[in-house]
């Protein structure tokens, strides 16, 4: 692949804290290598800002391998930027050309308040998990991995759902700010497996109730979430969430 350098104009969302009103600031970066990742490019800009005695841009990142779900930028009008099934940290600068202008914004959702600049508080996802994304297990020695027979297809579907890294791109992308893909994946990975059976009904009801309480929007099946999900989580998980919710809702005595 051809290696090249580029000069870019960046329009980055700057917001001091949760209370203040933010705005887009324009910055110039030069001599950016096409082999850098997007976050490395932001690192370069931050070094520049520090030498100019300015406040560096705050952004979330951790593994920088596309598996942790920490990075969360809305780049040029798309969650995690222009590449499909890809996180911001794995977006490389070869996705851009010399002279491009790139707009970078934080996830925008009532349930993801901005902490600073591009950092948003995604603890609403943690609270949804706490509401039901767990299973009961006996204490003592770990059970042998293959002690429970599980159908290959169910195991595959559960693993596909479990690939969700909880980054929030689905919420950021959805025009309604809905978290149904995230909750669908988390409910599915347990509903498909025998380990998830004991709390099956209460799980889906509690997780959906918490999701609504956090202020996420409703799913209107535009499927934008699936298209932007860095892990390619299928909207079939949303349908499974709907059917689990309907069944549990009809049979619950509470």
């Amino acid at each position, binding site marked *: 692949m051809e290696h090249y350098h580029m000069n870019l104009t960046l329009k980055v969302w700057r917001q001091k804290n949760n209370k203040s009103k933010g705005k887009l600031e324009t910055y110039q970066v030069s001599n950016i290598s096409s082999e850098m990742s997007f976050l490395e490019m932001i690192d370069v800009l931050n070094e520049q800002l520090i030498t100019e005695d300015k406040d560096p841009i705050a952004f979330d990142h951790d593994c920088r391998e596309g598996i942790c779900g920490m990075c969360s930028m809305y780049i040029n009008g798309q969650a995690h930027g222009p590449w499909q099934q890809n996180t911001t940290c794995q977006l490389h600068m070869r996705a851009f050309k010399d002279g491009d202008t790139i707009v970078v*914004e934080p996830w925008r959702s009532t349930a993801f308040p901005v902490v600073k600049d591009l950092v948003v508080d995604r603890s609403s996802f943690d609270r949804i998990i706490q509401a039901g994304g767990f299973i009961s297990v006996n204490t003592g020695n770990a059970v042998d991995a293959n002690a429970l027979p599980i159908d290959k297809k169910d195991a595959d579907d559960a693993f596909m759902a479990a690939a969700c890294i909880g980054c929030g791109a689905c919420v950021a992308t959805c*025009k*309604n700010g809905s978290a149904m893909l995230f909750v669908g994946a988390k409910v599915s990975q347990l509903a498909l497996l025998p380990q998830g059976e004991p709390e099956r009904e209460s799980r889906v009801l509690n997780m959906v109730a918490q999701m609504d309480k956090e202020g996420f929007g*409703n799913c*209107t099946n535009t499927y934008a979430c699936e*298209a932007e999900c860095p892990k390619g989580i299928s*909207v079939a998980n949303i*349908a499974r969430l709907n059917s689990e919710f309907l069944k549990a809702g009809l049979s619950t005595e509470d």
Partner: protein
Amino acid sequence: MAMTGIFLILFLIVHAGINACIFLNDNGETFNQMAHFMSHNWILRFLEVGLFAGLILHIFQGLSLWSQNNKARPVQYHFSQPSKNSKWYSRSMGILGTLLLLFLIMHLSHFYVGTKMELYGGVHHDETLFEEMKEVFSNLWIVILYVVGVIALFWHLYHGFQSAFQTLGINHKRYTPLIKIIGIGYAVIICVLFALMPISMYLGCIK
């Protein structure tokens, strides 16, 4: 939304089926008989109440979704490219629905209010429903408005049909592609039938 949507989808089959009787070209005889049967049958009068209830519920569900979803993102993106990840009609159900509601107000004032006045208010009409249709559809602007209404209906159904099944929890490797094809076929057939009614009457193809 999905349940009321499917209910209204079923109603449209009956509506389009009965109205398609005008294409028999028998001077509206079959159509008038069907219309008379529909308006003078108490079971159907009772179902009509259900139909309006379903429609109103569908509208209120839509409004409630709209208001909740607006609250979920109070600060909008400065730059967003939704066309990269979703179809315009899937994102425009509210606007399409509003267009349909405006269309419905016009449509009901043309063909519904009059027949009800006759039925309950004792106002006598000399015209049959078929003659009324001919009269209404002799105006080019009304024909154009009807066609625009049907186009809005087409995109609303195109997304709504398959979306209803997803909401009810049905997404299946084997059946979903079939549901999508049936949905497209349904939207095409219903909307072509509806659009042809004012057009063919205006052009004088229906005798």
